[in-house]
């Protein structure tokens, strides 16, 4: 039951509660005080009635002495009747002498004898309440005393009805007055509740507005007179000047003479004496509202500051995230339990997972059991010793073998304790490749120098062998011997060709420097081989950049390169295929780019690094010497350029319709007949950086 009332009460509005509370208090107090006062006044009225009755009786007794002494019955009767007739509530009066003889009375038709049996002793407390047929009657007994002699007794009956009527009237008036006062009190309570709750509601609305995010609220009422009006101040630089929202005593740095430069609440001591404070300070609700306004402004300022900081942090976070996501390096952060706290996008891509999938997991969740175990011991070692780790690892990936350079360093907190592990790993496969190429280049250079030296040394004895063989052939007529000598001569010439090629590879030959039209040289060579290739159903497409200026170089040697490359392409195709020759000016790099792509069987990846090695060949025995690409490499290098091969060729080195071009000849072959193909890319500088060639010593 109590809970029901409590729930109902707590659900009421404050205004209703105040009104209800005050009403209940007023009703209780009003009823209480009204009842007490009514009881007191009723008692007083009855007492007054009793006193009046006693006064009437005593007065009568006083006046009765003379007629009793004079035995003047007429006067006795007159006196008694006078009182009896004068007052309506006097029911009866009678007079007895000292011997209780009835001298006079107001009854007609006999005397009620019961009266002679009650209230005989005038010394007892008066009056005596009698209950009669005529209602309640107060019976008063007053003795007629003269000196010490009792001459008789006056008895007077006073009806209680009149007194009771008066008491009732008084109670009605009391009740009506109480109700009127309670009514006025309730009106006042309503007004009071409205006054209080109006301001509280204003405060509540401000609080709700704040909850909805509107901090530009004002719960306090605007002042009639602001501080600059009261102080007759016009100091614009004062923070309180023209600020109608905040009270000056809440603001720091106000410029009043008594402010003493303190901040709230330390300045309050001086503010309390200030006329502004005395004029404008309000009750607790107003103070609360004003404090609320100050709070709203402060919160707003703080939120704006926080928002600005948040934006900065978000921007920096975005920046950091972008960097982390864009960087090709793997970056991860693990805690002491080796759970991932952060993983860069590259790492996620490497594992084929998103960052969310990685964070919170350990290596055991991401890697194979063996790898995870390896990492665990390695990581624990770092966490225990604090020693960073740097190493290279090779990883087999679908796209090929990758080499990663991996660094693991411990992360320290402010107290110097290790809180985690930072891993960075970089794919250095390209670097590795370049490194290997560099080594290969170096090797080639050394090999070229060695081969050149050897060839130079062999060239002279070969010349002598050939010379003497030819001399012998002229001198010996024996046909068998001559045939043998011819075989020697032929094989010697083969050797001299090999030596000449070796010298060409090692540039131990002379170069003819002249102006070269690259496109013309290419066209010359194409014309030379076109027909032969056509017989093998190999078609040559070309696309020459007309803007290519002339170069300085050895045209014949360059043609040799073009021929070597075209022959290699035809060899790779065998029967039915296409070759696409393209020249292009790379103006910003000041280079000419020549690419020769084919639809041949392609070059295996593992062979790509070796194709420029001398004597490396995949052709059948007797089909090639393995020196063609080596010589081409040497020639291009001699011209300050570079040569490289890609298999299969990227699209940018092929025309859009290659190899399904209609020009190719319908029905000759379909796309499925081609191999992966290869493209050789030659870059030649426009500037004459061609080496002059190292002539043999």
């Amino acid at each position, binding site marked *: 039951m109590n809970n029901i009332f409590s729930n109902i009460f707590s659900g009421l509005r404050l205004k209703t509660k105040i009104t209800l509370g005050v009403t209940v208090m007023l009703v209780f107090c009003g009823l209480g005080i009204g009842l007490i006062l009514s009881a007191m006044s009723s*008692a007083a009225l009855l007492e007054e009635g009793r006193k009046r009755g006693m006064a009437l009786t005593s007065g009568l007794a006083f006046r009765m002495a003379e007629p009793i002494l004079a035995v*003047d019955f007429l006067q006795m009767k007159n006196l008694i009747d006078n009182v009896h007739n004068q007052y309506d509530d006097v029911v009866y009066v009678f007079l007895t002498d000292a011997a209780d003889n009835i001298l006079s009375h107001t009854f007609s038709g006999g005397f009620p*004898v019961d009266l002679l049996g009650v209230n005989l002793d005038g010394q007892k407390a008066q009056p005596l309440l009698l*209950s009669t*047929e005529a209602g*309640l009657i107060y019976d008063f007994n007053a003795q007629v005393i*003269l000196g010490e002699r009792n001459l008789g007794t006056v008895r007077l009956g006073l009806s209680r009805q009149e007194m009771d009527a008066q008491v009732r009237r008084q109670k009605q008036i009391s009740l009506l007055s109480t109700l009127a006062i309670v009514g006025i009190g309730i009106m006042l309570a309503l007004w009071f509740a409205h006054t209080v709750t109006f301001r509280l509601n204003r405060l509540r609305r401000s609080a709700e507005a704040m909850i909805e995010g509107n901090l530009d609220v004002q719960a306090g009422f605007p002042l009639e007179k602001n501080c600059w009006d009261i102080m007759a101040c016009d100091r614009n630089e004062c923070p309180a000047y023209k600020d109608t929202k905040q009270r000056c005593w809440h603001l720091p740095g106000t410029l009043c003479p008594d402010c003493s430069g303190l901040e709230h609440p330390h300045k309050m001591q001086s503010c309390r004496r200030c006329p502004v404070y005395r004029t404008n300070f309000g009750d607790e609700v107003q103070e609360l509202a004003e404090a609320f306004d100050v709070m709203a402004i402060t919160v707003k300022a703080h939120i704006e500051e926080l928002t600005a900081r948040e934006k900065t942090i978000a921007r920096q976070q975005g920046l950091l995230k972008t960097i982390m996501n864009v960087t090709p390096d793997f970056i991860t952060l693990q805690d002491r339990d080796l759970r991932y706290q952060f993983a860069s996008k590259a790492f996620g891509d490497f594992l084929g997972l998103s960052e969310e999938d990685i964070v919170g997991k350990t290596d055991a969740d991401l890697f194979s059991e063996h790898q995870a175990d390896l990492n665990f011991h390695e990581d624990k070692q770092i966490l225990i010793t604090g020693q960073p780790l740097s190493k290279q690892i090779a990883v087999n990936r679908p796209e090929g073998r990758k080499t990663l350079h991996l660094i693991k360093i411990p992360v320290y907190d402010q107290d110097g304790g290790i809180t985690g592990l930072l891993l960075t790993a970089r794919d250095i496969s390209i670097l590795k490749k370049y490194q290997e190429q560099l080594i290969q280049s170096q090797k080639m250079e050394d090999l070229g120098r060695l081969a050149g030296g050897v060839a130079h040394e062999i060239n002279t004895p070969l010349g002598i062998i050939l010379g003497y063989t030819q001399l012998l052939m002229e001198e010996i007529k024996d046909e068998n011997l001559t045939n043998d000598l011819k075989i020697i001569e032929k094989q010697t010439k083969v050797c001299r060709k090999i030596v000449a090629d070796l010298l060409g590879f090692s540039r131990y030959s002379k170069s003819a420097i002249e102006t070269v039209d690259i496109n013309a040289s290419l066209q010359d060579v194409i014309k030379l081989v076109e027909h032969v290739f056509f017989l093998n159903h190999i078609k040559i497409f070309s696309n020459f950049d007309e803007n290519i200026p002339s170069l300085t170089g050895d045209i014949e040697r360059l043609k040799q390169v073009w021929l070597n490359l075209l022959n290699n392409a035809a060899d790779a195709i065998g029967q039915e295929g296409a070759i696409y020759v393209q020249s292009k000016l790379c103006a910003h790099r000041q280079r000419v780019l020549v690419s020769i792509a084919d639809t041949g069987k392609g070059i295996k990846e593992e062979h790509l690094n070796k194709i420029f090695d001398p004597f490396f060949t995949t052709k059948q025995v007797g089909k090639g010497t393995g020196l063609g690409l080596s010589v081409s490499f040497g020639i291009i290098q001699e011209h300050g350029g570079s040569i490289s091969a890609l298999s299969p060729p990227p699209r940018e080195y092929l025309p859009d319709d290659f190899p399904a071009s209609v020009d190719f000849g319908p029905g000759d072959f379909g796309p499925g007949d081609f191999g992966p193909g290869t493209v050789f890319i030659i870059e030649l500088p426009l500037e004459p950086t061609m080496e002059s060639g190292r002539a043999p010593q």
Partner: protein
Amino acid sequence: MTKRHSEKPAGIICGMILLAAVFLSACGETEEAITISLEKREEIAFTLQVPALTYAYLPQYSHTESFQRHHRLVEYLAEQTGLSIRQVFPDTFDDHIHMFGQGKIDISYSNPFVYVKLANRFGARAMTRIIEEDGRAEFRGQIIARKDNREIKDISDCRGKSWVAVDPSSAGGYLFPLGHFVDHGIHLEDFREVVFSGGRQENVILGVYAGLHDIGTIREGSLSVVEDKIDIDQIRIIDNTRWYPGWVYAYSPRLSQEAAGQIRDAMLALDPENNPRHREILDAARFIGFVPSDDRDFDPVRELSAKVGLDLE
């Protein structure tokens, strides 16, 4: 918890106020009444008083004053003589005289003038005279005026003035002063007016004191009666009359000589000097004793009456 703490005292206070109010409001209603009937009526006759000798004091004062002065003496006389004696209260001097004549008064205490009338008319017989508080068995009248009345310096100035006297039958309050005026050549018709105060000495003094009358006549000693009512220093005594025999106890010729003798003896037996009760009786009666008396003592009064032309028959 806080809510409960704050609600409890308020609720208790309200409850206590209401409880106290209910209790207090109930207090006045607990008067118990005795039930009687006013319907049971009976005619009640006055119980006849036992026959007794009647004693009356000439009503120069109010009945209550008379009663208070004499009821002890009446009780003493009844006690001493074994007779049943009751004090009665005539309203006026005439009443006193008539009641005596009708036999309603057996023992009369009156001034000598009334006594002479009673003796002449109804055969009253003097038995004792009182001794006044000044030790004399005579008394005299006094002529008074307001002290600030400059027009009246001596008795001759009373001519043409307004005179208030006690009663036409009053000795000290009328006859003695009238004789005194006649002796000084001032007769009744020489006064502007002569009014009577209804037999009350006090009324004469109060009439002069109030300025209603220029002069008043009282018996000597009356001023002390009103000294607690007015400032008697404002009253000046213009003159005193000659001494006349004082107040007298007379008995009705219907009373037996024996009873009269018992009463006289009892009066004369009062010994205020040695008996405190006797002194108390006499103090209340405002005299100090009795002397035997007979009718001849009052001849000077008869002479005075003749002088002023009053009919004593």
